[in-house]
């Protein structure tokens, strides 16, 4: 039954001859999209051939972001200037289209159906891979973790908008998982011809929402998510006319799409094995490896080393002495701690009345607790973050400052490349030099902690901390 129809739609004679302007438009679009999909940067190929593991190889195939121009303005990172690379790609497309048209002027090509088909395949797989990789980040809800205690204790006005956007999703874990499933499903639908229209429609909508939200909340992923909107709209083009005729003009329609014919057994085997290895690799294998990377290798945004047992919570600083001098609680003191928080993991934070530079990183997942900086990203309010190692036998905490070093915007998409380079350099040499603090701690009772030692200014600190009971409305159901 299916056989005659396939050969019928495959006979090129049955397809109309394209007009000259259609051919020119196709040539421009073909090159434009190719430039956006196929990496031109040799550095990108290095990541393909020298991956850290098979997962990172697969991962590098899913996330290429065309970037032809290094702009350092704020607008390049958060605003419209970020789209400059699209303009350049379009320029290359136009130029290429003109050259191609010149060389093809004597050839009488009826149409580019075949090339168009393969371009669509390329675009479909590009979207599918990218979205599946996106989706798994939320399916294993690690892209937006549940807010840390220090974040629950931060005033709304002391938040950066992008952190508000991310954390809102993190507040409801199952909602994040469902969003992940939608992205994965939208990707999978594009692996198959018959579900391409539905998949492209879903993806155009979902990714438009993500792109606009990224502009609205300064999330800095707007250009990359817009890329998928562009690709999805491109996929929808051939369906528009048929849909219009059928539903608006209310006339019967016979759709005609070109598909290559796998007419021999060998061709069939090749086509289907390549296709299904792609599908298998980027759904099941990728999903398993991604799980392993996050939960076994620990590429996460929040630290995982547990803190001291039963210590998590917020503490009132009942007594605070610096060099033996007692300071009373004062919300406008730049030295005296206002409160101390121990997270469930090995992070200690205290709050003072002092301006600090705000980390604008998205909190890239990291292998080391020290560099897992999502908890301190995008919030103000004078809070210092320390990673600590506890020597429970001696009662000593070895602390390392997270504000100055931890992934200070390790984000490669940052506009402030000079600052990153500096931070990296500092990180490289500072590993040993940078002062670790060593504080004694005692726990006279379950709800009290006493800390003493030297701070980074070599002043002696003594603090009595009493736990405050908290019952956050946000976790009320």
């Amino acid at each position, binding site marked *: 039954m299916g056989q005659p*129809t396939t050969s019928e739609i495959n006979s090129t004679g049955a397809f109309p001859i394209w007009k000259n302007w259609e051919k020119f438009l196709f040539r421009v679009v073909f090159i434009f999209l190719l430039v956006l999909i196929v990496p031109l940067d040799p550095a990108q190929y290095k990541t393909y051939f020298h991956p850290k593991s098979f997962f990172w190889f697969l991962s590098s195939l899913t996330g290429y972001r065309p970037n032809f121009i290094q702009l350092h303005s704020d607008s390049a990172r958060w*605003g419209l200037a970020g789209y400059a690379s699209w303009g350049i790609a379009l320029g290359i497309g136009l130029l290429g289209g003109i050259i191609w048209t010149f060389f093809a002027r004597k050839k009488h090509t009826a149409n580019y159906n075949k090339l168009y088909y393969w371009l669509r395949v390329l675009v479909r797989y590009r979207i599918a891979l990218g979205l599946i990789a996106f989706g798994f980040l939320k399916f294993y809800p690690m892209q937006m973790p549940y*807010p840390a*205690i220090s*974040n*629950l*204790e*931060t*005033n*709304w*006005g*002391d*938040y*950066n*908008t992008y952190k*508000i*956007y991310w954390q809102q999703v993190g507040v409801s874990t199952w*909602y994040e998982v469902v969003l992940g499933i939608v992205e994965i499903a939208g990707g999978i639908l594009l692996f198959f011809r*018959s*579900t391409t229209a*539905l998949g492209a429609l879903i993806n155009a*909508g979902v990714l438009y*929402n993500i792109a*606009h*939200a990224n*502009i*609205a*909340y*300064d999330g800095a992923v707007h250009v990359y998510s817009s890329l998928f909107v562009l690709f999805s709209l491109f996929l929808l083009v051939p369906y528009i006319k*048929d849909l219009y005729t*059928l*539903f*608006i003009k*209310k006339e*019967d*329609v*016979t*759709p005609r799409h070109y598909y290559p014919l796998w007419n021999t057994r060998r061709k069939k085997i090749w086509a289907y094995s390549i296709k299904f290895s792609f599908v298998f690799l980027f759904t099941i294998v990728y999903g398993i490896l991604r799980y392993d990377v996050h939960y076994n290798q620990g590429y996460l945004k929040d630290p995982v080393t547990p803190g001291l047992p039963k210590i998590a919570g917020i503490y009132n*600083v009942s007594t605070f002495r610096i060099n033996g001098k007692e300071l*009373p*609680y*004062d*919300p406008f003191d730049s030295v005296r701690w*206002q*409160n101390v928080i121990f997270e469930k993991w090995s992070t200690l934070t205290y709050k003072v009345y*002092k*301006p*600090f*530079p*705000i980390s604008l990183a998205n909190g890239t997942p990291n292998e080391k607790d020290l560099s897992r900086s999502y908890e301190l990203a*995008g*919030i*103000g309010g004078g809070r210092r973050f320390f990673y600590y190692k506890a020597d429970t036998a001696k009662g000593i905490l070895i602390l390392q400052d997270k504000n100055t070093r931890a992934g200070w915007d390790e984000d490669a998409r940052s506009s402030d490349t000079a600052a990153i380079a500096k931070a990296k350099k500092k990180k490289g040499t500072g590993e040993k030099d940078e002062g670790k603090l060593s504080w004694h701690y005692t726990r006279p009772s379950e709800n009290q902690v006493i800390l003493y030692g030297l701070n980074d200014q070599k002043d002696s600190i003594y603090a009595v901390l009493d736990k*405050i009971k908290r019952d*956050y*409305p*946000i*976790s*009320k*159901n």
Partner: protein
Amino acid sequence: MAQAIYAVDKRENLRPFLLQFGIVFLLILTLPLDRHYYQTLGSIQIGHIHFQDLFQLANYVPFLGHAGAWGWESFAGWSWALALAFVAAAIWTRYDKTFIVHEDGWQYGLRVLLRYRLAAALLSYGFILLFAVQAPSPALSDLHTKYGYFLPWKIYYESLAVSSAGYGPTLGIFEIAGGALLLFRRTALIGAGIAAFLLINIVLANFAYQLGDEVISVYLLLIAIVLIAYDGPRLYQLLFREKKTAAEKFNPVFRGRWAALRLALKALFVLFFIAYATLLYRSYSVDKWPYPETPGLQGAAGFYDVRHFRLNGTDRPYSLVDSLRWEDVVFEKWNTISVNENRTTPINEQRPAIAFQGTGIERVYESLGNGQRSFYTYEVKGDHLTLINKNDGKTAYEFDIKRPGSGQILLEGRDKAGNMLQIELSKVDKKYLLYLGRRHPVKVY
């Protein structure tokens, strides 16, 4: 033999029965059968008509009756609708033998009703998003509330409120466009598609953040799905099977009086929403809705440190744990004071319905879902300030107010238990990362 004949009958009856069941069920949900709805209708004062009145008129929530129920529980009324529809459809199948002849007409009639019901919802919600009335810009008190002290729905609303680049209004425009497309038979599918897209997310968010609109959002999504399902076979044939697809053949014809009536109803519907949008715009621009409309103390708006706090003559120093002392105070631009009191405040768990009929103290949006600050409406008479708790409507404090210098406020008076209070407030020039930290690196407290 008898068995076989029965089997054939049964199959022939199943399709009309299912259709009739669906028609009755959707009618029960759509027609306002709840007496609640008519009470609201009766309470509208034509002289003081407010966009909220029109909103409620256009958005009957099926079986709201089960007040106080959350999540799936609030759908209890729907099981009655299912049972009732089952019985009604059984009777209908038994006695109406000509249904097959009128089937197309019934279906068309139902679709018209559902299209307009869905359009009404999309237009009324769309405009409140467009004018940022649903999720208004955060009040100063919100900026001084800790993240963990909001209920999840408030987090959702406040998050939407701080978006820039016309994000919220764009969602509104999509809803309005979807609603407008539903008004015409030929574009109804696109409208229903946009509606389904938006509503899937709205339904999920309602359950994830307990926004309080679970019932109506699920109901609207159901309508959108029913409308799309009508074109389902055609979509499947065209897009999945990619085969020849026949267009819809049914074409309703209106003549004479019917044509006039149809046009009149359509015009009435459009006029209704023009009136709605106009009233809403006035609320947005003049009335400050949903915040109170009475202006606050001249020049007082701001964030204040509680410099000194004397209770019955005893000075109480700064403290993070003293439940008798105030930590900080916010004067809103309108007549609201919110106090960070260092103790758990009873949280108002109401959801933000577009139904606050009142003015002044009844406009409680600012205090809903906030578990940290206590909100007081205040009245000024000369130098005298009366603070009324927004949660229970009772007088909480009586103060004499002095303003010796700029940014300084002295309050002297009593709380409701008769304790004597002397409070010195001093204004803090607070910088907010929320506003400073947009699109550039920043250093701030």
